[in-house]
């Protein structure tokens, strides 16, 4: 087995610690920026849902600000956004390179997408649930907590899975602007130094990683749904 791996992935096998380190960096970047972005996106997504035209707290000003900001950030290609954010990243995190420097641009890059996903997940809830909750005399906060967020859980899990897959892609992109992780590993060695086996090994690891995320997300949603 080892000899087979050595034969097929010589450059990976000779750099195993670095390879694992890159994998861990990717997991850390996905995990930390994913968790931060998840909470921000819940707030923004819920904000959009309650302030929209037929929302329970209709508010055109708030809705339009959130809506336009999302469109603005989503219209910037992520690699350019990450580059543009370098001064702010340095100010906030103290560094713009490595996993630490990657987290801020990743959060800024994924949150608009994630917020839209959360918005559409919540918009897919039967409006009858909301109307029933309103007819019971529940407050806005109660409806958000007891109805939107609770009944929305299966859909939120599904869009979170989709978002994590996108986020893994973005972590590879920040690798280019000094972010570290598997993307950086594959680009630096596999692409720039023609170590093709490094690229292939990275692809295999990412495909397995994403398949696991999707499997986990699907099982979780199935268990929760009645």
């Amino acid at each position, binding site marked *: 087995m080892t000899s087979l791996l050595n034969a097929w992935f010589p450059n990976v096998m000779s750099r195993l610690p670095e390879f694992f380190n890159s994998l861990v960096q990717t997991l850390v970047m996905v995990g930390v920026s994913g968790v931060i972005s998840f909470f921000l996106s819940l707030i923004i997504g819920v904000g959009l849902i309650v302030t929209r035209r037929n929302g329970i707290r209709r508010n055109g000003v708030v809705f339009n600000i959130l809506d336009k900001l999302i469109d603005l950030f989503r219209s910037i290609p992520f690699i350019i956004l990450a580059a543009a954010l370098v001064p702010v990243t340095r100010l906030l995190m103290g560094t713009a390179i490595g996993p630490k420097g990657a987290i801020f641009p990743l959060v800024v890059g994924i949150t608009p997408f994630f917020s839209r996903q959360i918005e559409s997940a919540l918009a897919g809830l039967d409006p009858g649930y909301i109307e*029933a909750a309103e*007819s*019971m*005399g529940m407050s806005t906060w109660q409806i958000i907590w007891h109805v939107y967020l*609770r*009944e929305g859980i299966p859909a939120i899990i599904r869009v979170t899975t989709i978002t994590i897959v996108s986020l893994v892609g973005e972590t590879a992109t920040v690798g280019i602007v000094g972010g570290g992780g598997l993307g950086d590993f594959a680009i630096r060695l596999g692409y720039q130094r023609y170590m093709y086996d490094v690229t292939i090994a990275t692809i295999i690891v990412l495909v397995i990683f994403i398949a696991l995320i999707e499997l986990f997300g699907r099982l979780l949603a199935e268990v929760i*749904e*009645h």
Partner: protein
Amino acid sequence: MNHRIPVVEIRNLTKIYRSGEEEDKTALADVSLDIDAGDIFGVIGLSGAGKSTLVRCINGLEGYDSGSVKVRGREVQDLTPADLRSLRQRTGMIFQHFNLMPSRTVAGNVELPLLEGSVWKHQRAARVAELLELVGLSDLADHYPAELSGGQQQRVAIARALANEPDILLSDEATSALDPNTTKSILQLLRDLHDSLGITVVLITHEMSVIRQICNKIAVIDHGTIVEQGKVFDVFADPQAQLTKSFIATTSNLDKITDLLAQDSPLVALEPGQVILRMSYVSKEVSEALVSYISRAFDLDVNIIFGDIDVVDGSPLGGLVVKIAGTDDHIKGALEYLKSRNIGIEILKS
């Protein structure tokens, strides 16, 4: 509360849906009606007539453009958000598609309106058990809505709507998604709750049979306007508006005779000395054995072709189509007698 003040008082209510691109749509135009405490008030109309909008103005789910909606003496549109919520807590609502929360059990759904406020968890559990008992679903407390039949889901929704002890229950097409037998049992439940809790029911439907089964008052709505309203018995006995008449025709099979006559069916073939007659019960005082009386007193053979008599708001309503055989004098005498007993008479064929 002074019992002479209606629980719901609607005056000249007008609601217009405005949207930028399309033409404005008038949902309600100059609607006025009073709903008294203890009424089971039915609002009937075709889909899109504005009845759902009307009921949503009562609990403030919809605003309105002009006119007034007073619930328990207070203008709905002028309530603060907190007061509006307390109005809604005292005004239960049930829906066509039940709108139960799928992630919660039956007990969890019933508990939902109780989550607010200072009710302790064990007190809530006791109240939930009480409510489920009331709708006959105690043994399904731990099931999820998806595991229940439509009728059971609507029972859960009714228990949920009653959680905060409301004195008004709004029912928005609550039986429209149910089969006829389940519809009957849900309506019976509403009636029982009305009788035992004294709750006022406002019921929206497109089925006249629903109104006939449990309402005491009716308003017929067409294109946002009330075309007829009154006590159910009076409206059924003597409908004025064309729409009301067509709704009533759907609840009775007495009109089938017209088809049979048109087809010259053997059922309606006459021999000399026979007439076909429609007798309509339109007065609340009918209680005698009319058919056997005229048969004996005027020496007639009375053959009932159709019968459709129902008890509406405590009195028989409907009629019979009969074939009568006898001498002309005797038939004439019988008709006079029936007219004197306030029976509507119509000779269909002679």
